[in-house]
């Protein structure tokens, strides 16, 4: 499978502040990649460099086999800080941005109307953007980013400000984009979206990459938990091999954090052999959120 995006040793410094440090990762063509990190981790700075809006202080970026802004017409971009011409009509906005991407006005108009109607904005096609609700404006912005059928879609915090229904709609849209062959890179600090959508993720903290791989691989970086139920001796449990720590989560309920690499079933067998009165158990896989917490260390998630 070919590579749609490749970063090698990319750094970005603003005056004395290093926003991105020696970042390298790649995104496969046709995949959905989550670009994860807490606020200020360097995600937006990286996306801007990918788009050629700012130049990296060091390193090399290749998008769709090219460098610089040559491939802008093949990219769709939704910025974190949404911005539209408030006095332009919704359809005119879409046609204008499509025009900048090299699409004929007549084609863009037909496609824009189709997309607006699909998003439930049929009655607002000829309304000024400024008169639309925030959610509707976001949809117009998203359509503007996708109307030219880009090969590579970059979405910066696409879910922020959307209600649960629209978040679900956007998730479906991202899936359909990938299904149609587009490569999607989206940044977020909400792990659930990445967990549901991404094959691969890149985690960033303080401008540095802390992880690159699949969601499963990321989860594997976090310890597993074994939930136990019964009148148990916590001190006895804590001494069992494979258990890192134990927490009392309620009357006769315990949560055991396992050592990295420890198998919950193996640990459970040892616990049963030791004669403990275990009335119930559950092996809990770590969430991406938990993996993120672990991978980003002491940093705020």
């Amino acid at each position, binding site marked *: 499978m070919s590579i749609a995006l490749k970063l090698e040793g990319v750094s970005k410094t*603003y005056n004395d502040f290093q926003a991105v440090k020696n970042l390298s990762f790649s995104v496969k063509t046709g995949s959905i990649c989550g670009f994860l990190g807490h606020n200020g981790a360097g995600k937006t700075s990286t996306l*801007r460099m990918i*788009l050629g*809006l*700012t130049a990296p202080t060091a390193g090399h970026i290749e998008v769709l086999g090219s460098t610089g*802004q040559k491939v*802008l*017409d093949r*990219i769709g*971009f939704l*910025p974190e*800080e*949404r*911005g*539209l*011409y*408030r*006095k*332009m009509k919704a359809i005119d906005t879409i046609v*204008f*941005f499509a*025009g*900048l*991407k*090299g699409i004929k006005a007549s084609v863009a108009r037909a496609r824009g109307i189709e997309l607006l109607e699909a998003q439930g904005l049929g009655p607002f096609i000829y309304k000024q953007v400024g008169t639309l609700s925030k959610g509707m404006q976001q949809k117009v*912005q998203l359509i*503007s*980013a996708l109307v030219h059928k880009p090969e590579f879609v970059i979405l910066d915090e696409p879910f922020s400000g959307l209600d649960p229904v629209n978040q679900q709609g956007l998730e479906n849209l991202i899936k359909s984009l990938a299904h149609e062959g587009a490569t999607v890179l989206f940044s977020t600090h909400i792990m659930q979206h990445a967990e549901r959508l991404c094959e691969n993720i890149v985690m960033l903290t303080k401008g540095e990459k802390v992880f690159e791989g699949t969601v499963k691989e990321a989860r594997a970086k976090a310890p597993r938990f074994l939930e136990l139920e019964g009148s148990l001796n916590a001190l006895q449990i804590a001494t069992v091999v494979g258990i890192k720590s134990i927490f009392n989560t309620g009357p006769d309920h315990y949560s055991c954090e396992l050592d990295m690499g420890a198998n919950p079933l193996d640990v459970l067998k040892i616990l049963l052999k030791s004669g403990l009165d275990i009335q119930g158990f559950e092996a809990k896989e770590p969430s991406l959120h938990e993996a993120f917490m672990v991978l980003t260390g002491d940093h705020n998630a």
Partner: protein
Amino acid sequence: MRKIFLIALRDYIAFVRTVGFWLSLITVPAFILISGSSSYLAHHDSPALRVAVLDISGEHLGPQIEAFINKQDPHYKMAETQITLPKDRLSAAKSVSGGGIRLVTLPTELKDITTMSQADIQLKAYFKNDKADIDSLIVSALDKDVVSLHIWSKSDKKGAVEGAIGDWQFDLLQYYRLAQKNGIDPVIAKTMRDSKAQILNLTPVTNMAAKNDFAENLKTQGPRYVGIAIGYICWISIFSSSMILLQSVIEEKSSKVIEVVLASAPAESLLIGKVIAVSMVMLSVLGIWLSVILSVFGLGLLNIPSDIMLSIMSLAASIFSPGHTLLLLTYFVGGYLMYGMLFASIGAYCESQKDAQAIMGPMMMILMVPVIVMQYALVSSSVPPIRFLSYVPIFAPFLMPLRMAGKLETWEYIVTLGGMALMTWFMIRVGVRAFKQGTLNGAKLNLRHIVKLISGK
């Protein structure tokens, strides 16, 4: 190129749709049209003043006064003196008098007046009556052997006749009266009058101006005033369009739309597109203004005498010759690019109008320099402050068009155009860099940053 065109077109349509654009477009032509129409209507629709002449001089001056007033025949010759009433004087009188003066027969009830005291009593009563048959009465009398004209008018026509006849040479009446009284041939008297010593300046321009002819004055002084007007127009156009550019960038930056556009088009395209859009707005406004002005002139609404009109046209032909026009355009375009780039770059560093005001304060001080200096051009367009400052590239777009109305050396064009070209190149280069930095990196505009921008590091 396509992206530049699209950005320019979008911005142009956005500007054109603003209320401010239509207001600026309408107000100036409306003012020209209203003032032109008023002048036209005043001339064509106002009824002529009904004026009668009462001669109590005892020297039969009445017909001569009537001859002066009778402006129907421009070649009218005074019956007794054979002196031609100057054609231009008739024209001037015509233009001053609005609806003009119509001589009417003296009302019967005033025919009995033979003395000034009688006139005072009867005319006071007559003109207090709003239903008086005539608007004004010119009473010619002799006061200590000097011809005097007493003008009586209805209260609402006060000053109208004086205004209309003020420019005529009524003193000729006294002059020729005295000549005849002393047995001097009026023709010889005229020759003597005309052969008075003249005080002339030795420069050809003022020599002609000594003739005190408006049309000639227009020829000699006109270019200077046109130069001043062009200088001011350049300043206003460049400054106002640069301000539009500044506001447009601030608006796009504060609404965050600039990042979306820059993800689709290079910063250079956005900047050039904006510069073109504003120039198109400016051209639209100027084009419409010019069309209205030319229409007003063409329809004769300004009621300008034909000889003055000819002088204006000859003046325009000399100032707006192809070479001259090309130079004017070059200075204008250079100035617009210099200031447009500068203002757009400043806009890129501002999040709001308030931010812009803080930066624009010192800028305005510099921009006011040519405006202050241009006032010296009322004396001469080549006074040292104007001449020396016109060599400074940032002032050349305003002061060179002003100076071009006079005679300039070729090296002055070369130096100013060269300097301006270099400065424009520098501004474009640094402006694009600053625009990128300001819009995308959120950099702050301080001395250190400016040095970085200029050095390109």
